[in-house]
């Protein structure tokens, strides 16, 4: 599983929220072109780890080594900071994905619009192109936001529970798109709670519990659940009763 050339690696990382250390001694690589599921009970630091990887939270110790350029990193947080009253259409939101690499001053050219339309067609939201953001359902909004990351040509994509409050059809579309992005080489990290989604989507799993992280195979996460005799570390992570 170790990949010496991985574009994203954590080296003895320690992260804190305020004065409380949430995670420590986290070392490992995220394989390029793979979808890694991040699992753990509430409060085990999944969002903290994502913030650390995005560079929004300075490490107390250790470091995040990421060779993906900033304009190719995308993050969809669980608590959206998106202002839904802002007068912007779906197409305009998708197009903002080109800003980081295209620059702040240049206008869009025909190729940008073409790409935007292709992306919306791929996500099944072409008919919503001119709809204001405030009038979208949760699933439609999530598709539009994934559209923005596609426009951005994101090579590192961090998603915090992307399928929460989203309709089943959207889940299918998003899973297919994420799979395509990964096969094109993107490194994708997804916070997941649903084991069925994990089984279908993830190539690898990182389990967070008691301030530590463990890289494990998807099978080893699913196996104990199926056999109804969870290993203590996993049961703690997935929300079972702690053995102590």
């Amino acid at each position, binding site marked *: 599983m170790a990949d010496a050339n991985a574009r994203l690696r954590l080296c003895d990382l320690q992260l804190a929220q305020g004065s409380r250390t949430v995670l420590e001694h986290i070392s490992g690589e995220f394989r390029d072109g793979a979808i890694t599921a991040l699992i753990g009970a509430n409060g085990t630091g999944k969002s903290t780890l994502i913030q650390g990887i*995005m*560079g*929004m939270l300075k490490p107390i110790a250790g470091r995040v080594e990421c060779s993906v350029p*900033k*304009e190719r*990193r*995308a*993050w969809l*947080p669980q608590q*959206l*900071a*998106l*202002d839904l*009253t*802002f*007068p*912007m*259409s779906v197409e305009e*939101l998708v197009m*903002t994905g080109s*800003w*980081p690499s295209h620059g*702040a*001053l240049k206008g869009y050219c025909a190729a940008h619009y073409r790409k935007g339309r292709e992306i919306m067609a791929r996500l099944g939201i072409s008919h919503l192109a001119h709809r*204001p953001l405030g009038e979208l359902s949760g699933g439609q909004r999530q598709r539009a936001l994934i559209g*923005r990351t596609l426009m951005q040509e994101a090579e590192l994509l961090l998603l915090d529970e992307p399928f929460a409050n989203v309709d089943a059809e959207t889940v299918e579309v998003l899973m297919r798109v994420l799979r395509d992005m990964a096969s094109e080489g993107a490194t994708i990290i997804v916070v997941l709670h649903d084991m069925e989604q994990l089984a279908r989507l993830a190539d690898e799993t990182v389990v967070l519990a008691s301030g530590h992280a463990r890289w494990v195979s998807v099978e080893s996460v699913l196996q104990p659940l199926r056999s109804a005799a969870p290993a203590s570390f996993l049961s703690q992570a997935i929300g079972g009763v702690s053995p102590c």
Partner: protein
Amino acid sequence: MLTLLHEWLIAPFDYGFMKRALIASFALSLAAPPMGVFLVLRGMSLIGDAMAHAILPGVALGFLLAGFSLPMMSLGGILSGLLVAVLAGSVSQMSGQREDAAMASFFLISLAAGVMIISLGGSSVDLTHVLFGSILAVNTTSLLLIAAISSLIVITLAVIFRALVVECLDPLFLRGQGVRGSLVHGVFLGLVVLNLTAGFQTLGTLMAVGLMMLPATAARFWSKRLEGLIAVAIGIALVASTGGLLLSYHFNMPSGPAIILLAGVGYVFSALFGSQHSLRRRLRRRAAPLGAPEPH
């Protein structure tokens, strides 16, 4: 008929002072409404008001030191406006108090300090002049300064436009790109201060904010799109400025309040008859029928 129209609408601008007033208010009408639109979208509609009070002590000090010199008063205004913005920001960061509370405290202090400084050094005529402006007394130097500041605002706004949009819409996206939202926010507040200092000569410190906010709040009733909001707001500001100047000329009204009141009429009209969320729309709104089901 044509003669009458000419006499009412065109002839007043044969006078040099009316020409200068018109150009000054056009410059302000191009620069101020876009700022107002962003303030409204960011839920900071009252910040403009707070900043208008904040520039007062600086304007007053400039007035005391150099008399009625627009460059000195503007410089003072910019400095005190920025000082209050920075102080309010730091106090709220250090104490955890909300920024609007800190801002409210500082702008009240500023207002009192400004009025005190002018009263100690000047007369009540001066006070009225600074508080409410005198657009008909704009000379060429003032006009150049207003035009220069307005141009600077429009250009800077164009440069930071995308960052500003993203910062309003989705601050986390901007942070993810390594751009500090607070920097964009700071530049934007700086522009608000600049805009108000450009406006105080013509409209007065307290009225200058009117040309920024009223067209912007009115535009919300006409457009769902950002470009539309900005275009409508600028349009309303231009009409209010021209109309206000004409009213002030023909009926011997004070020009600043005439302009702002006309913008206010625009706001009330928009709220009643606009194409978005207006009273008219609300009364007319009916749920559209789903239509016949598609045949299987």
